[in-house]
């Protein structure tokens, strides 16, 4: 193991430009992957924030009793797809009205709680359940009108899905490209050392003895590339923080928790290790077979 490590380092030192290209390409791939992961994280935070906002509002008839409203609240809370139910009583509605019209005291004086309807504000566990919640609310006795911005929410749901699916697809394609890239680079390295591999074979070297340095080299490319990629994307995130915060306003998408960042680094290092291992194994296996 130590010999393989030392040989890999010696090879990298003796041909620094090849090593530099391999590490740079790996870094670039990981930089894109980490950046995408961070964008996805921020987008997810924003979506979670929006999803927790009241999404369906049911207005009761002005004649509806408090018992009817409480019974409706209890009924909705039982539903597994309902995240939160909030009651806005006639008095709460009046307070909101007065707050919104405090610059016009005459208008506020004209309106009393009796003419304002009580309402239920319902949040769903998923935006896909909004239609079901809307139907449930309409069936409740005393409910006059159910309001939710169907098109906005449908678009939001569609965006959520698109971001998640395209994220998976882009990440998948990216790692496939990275795998092939490292495979090609290491194949070139192995091809250059074909004579050496042949001689080692004739001298009775074990497979690990021959493969070891190449595999360690591949792992080093992967691990170093992922660490530099992570550091680069973190620096870019720090640089872009004021712009991101300004863009999202009241939605707190930053800071990203330390645990998330450390997990990203750990995951990246593991992926880099795996990519280096698999690609170098495949690259060397081809030549050993021949």
């Amino acid at each position: 193991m130590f010999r393989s490590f030392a040989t890999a380092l010696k090879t990298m030192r003796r041909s620094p430009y090849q090593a530099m290209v391999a590490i740079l390409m790996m870094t670039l791939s990981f930089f894109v992957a980490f950046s995408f992961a961070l964008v996805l994280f921020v987008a997810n935070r924003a979506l979670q924030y929006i999803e927790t906002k009241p999404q369906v509002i049911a207005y009761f008839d002005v004649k509806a009793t408090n018992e009817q409203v409480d019974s409706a609240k209890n009924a909705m809370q039982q539903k597994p797809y309902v995240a939160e139910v909030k009651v806005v009583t006639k008095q709460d509605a009046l307070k909101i009205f007065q707050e919104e019209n405090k610059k016009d005291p005459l208008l506020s004086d004209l309106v009393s709680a009796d003419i304002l309807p009580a309402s239920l504000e319902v949040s769903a566990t998923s935006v896909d359940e909004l239609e079901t919640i809307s139907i449930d609310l309409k069936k409740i006795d005393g409910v006059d009108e159910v309001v939710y911005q169907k098109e906005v929410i449908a678009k939001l749901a569609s965006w959520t899905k698109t971001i998640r699916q395209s994220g998976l697809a882009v990440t998948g394609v990216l790692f496939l490209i990275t795998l092939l890239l490292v495979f090609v680079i290491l194949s070139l390295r192995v091809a250059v050392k074909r004579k050496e591999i042949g001689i080692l074979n004739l001298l009775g070297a074990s497979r690990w003895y021959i493969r070891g340095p190449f595999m360690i080299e591949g792992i080093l490319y992967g691990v170093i590339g992922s660490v530099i990629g992570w550091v680069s994307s973190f620096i870019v995130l720090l640089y872009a923080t004021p712009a991101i915060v300004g863009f999202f306003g009241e939605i707190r998408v930053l800071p990203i928790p330390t645990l998330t960042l450390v997990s990203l680094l750990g995951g990246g290092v593991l992926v880099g290790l795996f990519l280096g291992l698999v690609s170098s194994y495949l690259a060397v296996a081809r030549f050993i077979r021949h």
Partner: protein
Amino acid sequence: MMPMVSFSNIRKMYGDQVIFDDLNLTVDPGEFVFIIGRSGVGKTTLMRLLTQQVTPDAGSIFIEDIEVGKLKRKDVQKLRRMIGVIYQDYKLLTERTVGENIALGLEIINKPKEEINSRIEDLLQLIGLPGKANLFPTQLSGGEAQRVCIARALATAPRMLFADEPTGNLDDETARSIVRLLSKINELGTTVIMATHNQSLVDHLGKRVVSIEGGKAVEKVKKTKEKGKGE
């Protein structure tokens, strides 16, 4: 006494071309045998059969009591460590120093660094190239490179050396010095099989000579010196 190597009823073809047809050859421990024959008769194939780079179409090969054809891949590696092979084109790694080239076989069997360094010094003395451990193969003459190849083959103290046309790229004087070196190694107890097409090298040493003719091993003369005495 158990032979060091025995080829029994070997048949080997490359496509339609018959290389060996019922070849039989036995080499005893400690022997020095010249394998002669014109280019393309199968001298290198003999070495490849021995190291399991190729397998015979029929027949069996034994190295001491080990049947080469029945070895598993892992054991083939061990077998190759038992045989020192010397090549016409030296097969030295140009990006490694002389010392590092000689050390290859020892590193493969995980010898400690100190032992490797001491062995390199001893071998460089034996081949007459002391103090050249840090040179690269490109800085050596053909004869020196071949000596390094011999040292590399000897590093793991193999019981047998197979020299495949070791003098093919060398001038007569250097070639003779290489053969003298192999003779010296043989006198120290290592079995040596040397393939060559250079009849003049064979004549003056008085060793056993086997010629490959028509796919068979033909015993030419037991000892060339004895022949000379007899005449």
